């Protein structure tokens, strides 16, 4: 059937080279394929996000996709007001019959890039810079630590968060400074899970001739030769699939969890970072993937018990 799709980004903005950009890519792909126009909106504050979701719903847009956990409570309210409209929320769970909640097993993805970081590191020290200090980001960090330590049990992992408010997603200066701290302490690979702030991490690593790891989108191209890999969440697929399912009347509500098995999280390897990935690293990653799918390696999810065993 003909659909009228809408997309509300997180406050990082459409072209954050990360999470939101991935959603945009998915929507564009669907548009290219089907010729269906969609509308999107970039809120700059919390109230605005809720208004945008509601605006779309009340104007008959369907499905309405909101990317970012920040829209959880907004989604709870608006989805209840418009039971006929299909909603998708990414990175959070909203338990309503017309909402599909897409979550990712970031721990598994982060494990993979942690593994690569551990292998690429010459100093035995790697770093992690998170955005806002929330459980979700700690989940990234925890998976990363596990991956890195799987290479070498005494691997040292520095962890920092940019801040404790929403501004932490938009502060590349501080993120860069934290990265420089970690580099000064010996880290030679730094993983950014910090939204737009992550650009500061990638930049600082490149400026200091160290390696970095991107997040959400494939950020390998941002500083070719310096970005070791990216922990890609296939948000583009989530968006694309949601539109497609609705158009085909196959929309399902409920939680959709994407891990390595479903191809929802991957460690991106492309022409920009080929030279950085040795054949041993490639084999190690493939093996880890297989082990995780087989269940022989279990990656602990921070959010299950709000703690990280490492």
């Amino acid at each position: 059937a003909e659909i009228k799709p809408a997309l509300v980004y997180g406050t990082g903005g459409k072209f954050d080279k990360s999470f939101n950009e991935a959603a945009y890519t998915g929507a564009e792909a669907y548009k290219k394929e089907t010729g269906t126009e969609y509308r999107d909106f970039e809120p700059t504050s919390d109230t605005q996000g809720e208004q945008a979701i509601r605006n779309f719903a009340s104007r008959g847009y369907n499905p309405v996709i909101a990317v970012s956990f920040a829209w959880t409570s907004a989604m709870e309210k608006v989805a209840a007001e418009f039971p006929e409209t299909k909603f998708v929320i990414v990175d959070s769970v909203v338990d309503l019959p017309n909402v599909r909640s897409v979550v990712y097993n970031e721990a598994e993805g982060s494990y993979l890039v942690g593994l690569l970081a551990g292998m690429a590191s010459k100093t035995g020290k790697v770093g992690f810079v998170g955005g806002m200090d929330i459980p979700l980001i700690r989940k990234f960090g925890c998976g990363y630590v596990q991956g890195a330590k799987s290479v070498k049990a005494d691997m040292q992992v520095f962890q920092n968060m940019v801040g404790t408010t929403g501004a932490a997603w938009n502060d590349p200066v501080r993120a860069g400074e934290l990265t420089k701290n970690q580099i000064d302490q010996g880290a030679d690979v730094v993983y950014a899970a910090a939204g737009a702030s992550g650009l500061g991490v990638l930049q600082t690593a490149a400026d200091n001739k160290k390696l970095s790891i991107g997040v959400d989108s494939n950020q390998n191209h941002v500083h070719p030769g310096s970005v070791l890999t990216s922990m890609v969440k296939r948000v583009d697929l989530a968006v694309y699939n949601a539109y497609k399912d609705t158009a085909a009347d196959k929309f399902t509500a409920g939680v959709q969890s994407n891990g390595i098995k479903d191809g929802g999280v991957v460690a991106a390897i492309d022409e920009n970072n080929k030279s950085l990935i040795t054949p041993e690293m490639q084999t190690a990653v493939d093996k880890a993937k297989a082990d995780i799918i087989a269940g022989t390696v279990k990656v602990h999810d921070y959010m299950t018990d709000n703690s990280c065993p490492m």
Partner: protein
Amino acid sequence: MSTASVPLPGWISYGVIPLLNLILAFFFSGLVVWAIGENPFEALKFLIEGALGRGDAIGFTLFYATSFIFTGLSVAVAFHAGLFNIGSEGQAYVGGLGAALVALSLDHYVPWYVTMPFAVIGAAIFGAAWAFIPAWLQAKRGSHIVITTIMFNFIGAALMVYLLVNVFIVPGKMAPETRTFLAGGQLPKLDWLMALFGLKLGPAPFNVSFIIALVMCYLVWLLIWRTKLGYEMRTLGISPTAAVYAGIPYVRTVIIAMLISGGLAGMMSLNAVMGASARLQVEFVAGAGFVGIAVSLMGRSHPVGIIFAAILFGILYQGGADLSFEMPNITRDMIVVIQGLVIFFAGALEYMLRPAMVRLYQTARGK
């Protein structure tokens, strides 16, 4: 001859000149819109429709206006006593703590109308407390209140983030915020009021704190123009030397004025915390304290003027959201630009048009 001391009638000083300043501010805002390739008139149309076109739009407009009335009053009360309180933002933020504590502790047990008076007091006390130290520093040690209140905005932000992240956060939740208040800790929406005018409020969080705001307008009017304290504050604000002569205690008057100012700012949190989101969130004030400066300047520090100015800014905020939705090229931050221009023209350049007006007025009167 200088024109500075020539008196102008009230309708020019309080009517024509502010209006012209406002028009200038909008003119330059229109230039910005035009510069980014959009049609300013169409933008204006979207803005007004978005703010006043539907019941829920009006609800949102009044919701924003409610916050601005509180902060506008806050700035105005201090201003009457000759104090420039730039700290309404921080006082509102900390005031939210007072409102939230009351809501969190009472919402299980009592209905909202029992919680409300305590919440009003709680918000006011916390807001006032945050104004106290700058007030004391000004009164006793002569520290410039503009600087100290700015500093306290930052200190307040750090404090609140700390509390929300480390104390109030709900385990397992992502966002640093308190749990959602139950109905006993929420201020109900004013659907019935809108229904009186045949409008549907819809999802707009226009709530009971609007009525509290109007009551505060009345009380502030009473305070400033009908009480002995208000008389003393105005005397101090206009002529500190006359205040000394009249035996008006400087320290006491400054501190009381700032406590009232801080208390009013704190009450802004009733609207945002208990009326809209039903929880205490980081950065919920979202600049309303600063808007209060513009509102107070525009409203000439009079409650009636403040109500009008607050509604004007409510229109800008709500209409701005709709405008940015309709014209994605214009982000909502356009409103911040307009706000800045309004403060610039109505505040910083308030004397710019005066000489010309004096000349016009004198020629018109055939002098």
